[in-house]
């Protein structure tokens, strides 16, 4: 059963990157080329999602070939509902960011963004740790150059910080997987999950290393690697600087997609391989989730820079994903809790998609504001902009309300399902985490009030409303927010069956 669908999909943006690099240096041409490939990838992904047999679920479009036989490394790709969800998100946010790039569509930037997309698509389809890790780490290279696009010293420092943090986390993860390979002789994630499911992985590890705590060490290494990427507080300090110093379209990619690699890793690597350890470590893990949620929310409340507010708010929102995943792990596998675990897992997957979409949209709007204000983006630099820019206010308002979880928009469904599930599984943690929902409302409403309402700040006598091109850039995202919010079942059917496989 060999086909090339996923490989082809992964290499469409790569081909795009090569082509764009060879194009003559004309902005419009480069922009059109980049967008053309991005939309082609989107079309291919949508076709794949439609082709996917939802009723059957499980991994499909599998490609499995020997790659480095000496080390038992296979080229092994496949996609289930989770992968498809992230492929879709990647293919939606990438053209969105390319559109938002506007004037900055240089050959260098567009090429990098397409390269980044390839690494993302690769990460979300690879089922062998080695090339999963290859893509995962390769994504840092374009990300690094994109963050320091502006070229300021601060941007370079932020990019370096991001690079080193993530790289160190990656090393910890690599060491963990080398130990697993030593013990089991395979890097195949599906085989390893099967071993773990039969309770053999831990035994294999302790037998190979003659040390019973080795599993914990390996788990810790992999967790650290993913925790930096998500990020989990206190491994988050690279994030606010990176999101703030990067130009808005790059922040869209960072928050919309790169942070999802971490959550994806938790679901694809950590939860299937260490369900037992995650069950035993539920208290500290839930504590990590709570700290991430509550700290993120309060820190966002304390910021005075629009981008930093949204950066911390992203930490908070991803904290809900952690809450859902760790609550599921804490529940074990009693069949009575199946409904709640399924609800929480569905919620986590929805939240991954919703946060990617909404946070990207909000960064896009902040980018629009920055281009009008000459880079100014302090919370108190504006005031009353709604008078001059009603469309900007209305559309950004919708995105912010989506972020604070208003029913009818996308954010609500995921968060509510996470809370529904985790409240039944771990009531205390969920109740505490709900404080985050309230704080989120507080800082997002404050943002609307300071920036858009109240008397017009006289310094912005002219503040043009969104142009037609800008409206077209954000319109699909806004439409999707409504679509998912009103009819979540549309998205849920894509991964509903996969949810059962993801539950430990």
């Amino acid at each position, binding site marked *: 059963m060999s086909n090339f669908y996923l490989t082809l999909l992964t290499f469409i943006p790569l081909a795009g990157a090569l082509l764009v690099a060879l194009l003559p240096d004309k902005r419009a041409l480069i922009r059109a080329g980049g967008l053309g490939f991005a939309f082609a990838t989107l079309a291919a992904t949508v076709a794949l999602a439609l082709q996917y047999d939802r009723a059957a679920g499980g991994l499909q479009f599998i490609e499995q070939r020997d790659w480095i036989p000496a080390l038992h490394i296979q080229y092994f790709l496949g996609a289930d509902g989770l992968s498809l969800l992230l492929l879709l998100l990647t293919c939606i946010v990438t053209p969105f960011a390319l559109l938002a790039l506007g004037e900055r569509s240089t050959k260098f930037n567009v090429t990098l963004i397409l390269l980044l997309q390839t690494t993302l698509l690769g990460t979300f389809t690879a089922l062998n740790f080695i090339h999963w890790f290859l893509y995962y780490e390769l994504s840092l290279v374009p990300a690094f150059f994109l963050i320091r696009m502006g070229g300021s010293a601060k941007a370079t420092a932020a990019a370096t910080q991001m690079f080193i943090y993530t790289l160190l986390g990656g090393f910890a993860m690599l060491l963990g997987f080398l130990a697993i390979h030593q013990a089991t002789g395979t890097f195949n994630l599906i085989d390893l999950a099967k071993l773990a499911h039969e309770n053999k992985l831990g035994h294999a590890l302790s037998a190979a290393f003659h040390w019973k705590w080795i599993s914990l060490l390996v788990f810790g290494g992999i967790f650290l690697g993913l925790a930096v990427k998500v990020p989990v507080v206190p491994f988050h300090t690279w994030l606010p600087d990176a999101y703030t110093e990067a130009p808005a379209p790059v922040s869209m990619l960072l928050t919309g997609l790169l942070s999802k690699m971490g959550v994806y890793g938790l679901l694809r690597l950590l939860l299937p391989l260490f369900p037992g350890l995650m069950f035993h470590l539920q208290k500290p893990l839930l504590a990590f989730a709570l700290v991430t949620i509550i*700290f993120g929310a309060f820190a966002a409340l304390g910021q005075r820079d629009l981008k930093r507010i949204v950066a911390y708010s992203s930490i908070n929102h991803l904290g809900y994903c952690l809450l859902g995943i760790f609550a599921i792990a804490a529940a074990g596998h009693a069949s009575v809790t199946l409904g709640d675990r399924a609800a929480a897992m569905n919620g986590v997957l929805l939240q991954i998609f919703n946060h990617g979409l909404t946070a990207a949209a909000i960064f896009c709007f902040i980018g629009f504001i920055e281009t009008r204000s000459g880079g100014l983006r302090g919370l108190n630099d504006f005031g009353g902009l709604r008078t001059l820019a009603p469309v900007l206010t209305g559309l950004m308002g919708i995105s912010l309300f989506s972020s604070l979880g208003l029913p009818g928009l996308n954010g609500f469904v995921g968060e509510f399902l996470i809370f529904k599930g985790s409240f039944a599984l771990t009531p205390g943690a969920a109740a505490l985490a709900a404080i985050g*929902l309230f704080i989120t409302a507080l800082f997002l409403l404050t943002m609307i009030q300071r920036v858009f309402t109240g008397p*017009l700040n006289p310094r912005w006598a002219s503040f043009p409303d969104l142009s037609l091109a800008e409206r077209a850039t954000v319109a699909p995202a806004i439409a999707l927010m409504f679509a998912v919010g009103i009819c979540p079942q549309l998205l849920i059917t894509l991964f509903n069956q996969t949810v059962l496989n993801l539950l430990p």
Partner: protein
Amino acid sequence: MPLPWIILFAPLLSAALIILFTQRYKNLSALISIAAVLVSLAASVGVFLAPEMQPATAQLPWLDFSSLGVNFRIPIGFTLDGMSKAMLIVVTAIGALIHIYSWGYMADDEGKSRYFAGLSLFMFSMLGIVFANNFLMMFIFWELVGVSSYILIGHWFYRKAPSFAANKAFICNRIGDFGFMLGILLVWVATKSVDFETIKTTLPTLTANPAFLPFATVAVVCIFCGTIGKSAQFPLHVWLPDAMEGPTPVSALIHAATMVAAGVYMLARVYFIVETSAAAMEVIAVIGTITALGAALMATQQNDIKRVLAYSTLSQLGYMVMAVGVASPNGAMFHLFTHAFFKALLFLGAGSVIMACHHEQDIWRMGGLWKKQPITLITFLAGTLALMGIYGFSGFYSKDAILIAASEHHPVLYYCGLAAAFLTAFYMTRLFVVVFFGKARTEAAGHAHEVSIVMWLPLVLLAIPAVVAGYPEIIHRFLPTPAHEHSMVPYIASGMGLAGILFGVVLYWGRAKDPIYIPLLANKFYFDEIYALIVWNTQDLLARISGFVDRWIIDTAIVRCLASGTYGAGFILRFLQFGNLQLYALLFGGGVVALFYFILFFK
């Protein structure tokens, strides 16, 4: 298409049409919105007159995981019982009148299109609450009502006060919703369902177990948090007076007649859950009583006509909540029903006074309006007497139903209720006398004249139910009322009311300024100040702490230490790289010698 769908979706369609297409055509937008609400009204009357209308004829699955083999379905469905039908009539009838009134009141407003879109969105959300047949649907529309209220309070967003008031309202509601959501989740965990009918059937088996009682108490108190937020009960009442920054018709519809009553409606809807915990009902009764009395006290010292009415709304909502707490949900719904009409009437009357005095809201800058606004005067009087609970007006019947229930429950609640009744008569007399009688105290008040027909006609149409809605023959068509027993309570309550009127007339007749000043009441018990001090400062502090932790402790202490540790190690190791070949050779040789030494002598 079945009527309930039409009732619910006509306003949504109107809101969507206005936002997407007719923003530029203000009058067209207004007409679309008015037409939508009239359609909803007509369909509601149709539903009301069709006695055999089956509830939940159509259900739309919203979330459905049943393909996973788990019981998880959440539909959008309809409840059609006596209570929801009565609520439908209240919401659509008052809604329709207020839409029409708004045509006049907002005639010159720049943002007329957004205003009517907001009203339509509100109607949709409110009707969703009325129809909800499960907790999740109620919660969804509950939040939507909150956001439409937010939009409408902030209608004049370019002014400072409304933009703050809108935020305050949404945030207070969100605090309440936080509890409400936990309450819903608790009930969901216990009964495995959010559907009201299913919960009703599973609950008896749970309550048979005494260990369930504390759980039920926590759940009911959490659910009640939703009411505290939405119906502005103590201690979250602070948002409602500020919400008066919105246009007056909005205050009438949302912040007096319908939305704020949603909290009471919700409690009555899930009363079968509420009554499982006596302790939680005590909490509800006490919170309601505190609100009823406290708000009445604050109302006596307010000078803004709309704020007086806002505090009176708080106080009346307190009565309704108290009624639920003393096991009289019927009394609560009865008062909700009559209050909706007379309070909407009072607000619209206030609106016409405000317009006549060129947007003046201070009652001490009005006066002598009785000659100039006779229709407003008479209709306002009807509303005032109904609010005071004077015999023959609707408020009399419903307020007495609550007071009777309270008197049977606990004397303290009853006395507090009576005191609030006295205060109500007093502050409304103050308001009425100062606004309509005496000399015109400003130029604007001197030149006032009656408002146009689109504005006074709704007043007249609302005055009728304000008088008659409580009559037993009429209310029985809409709602079940508490059994009428022979009681002394109505006489005592009427006595309190008359005393309040007398006191008010003596104190305020012919005055040009307030003869009494009680700082504690005028400053609303300093709640806003205390909250500002506690809530905002604490949050600010927490925010600062987290910022500090990030910047200094994690970043500097841990990360920088690690980083400088690495650099330090590199720095020390660098000294080993001299770049001197001879020295390297010497060290190499030394190493070889050492190695041999160890191998040979340490076997």
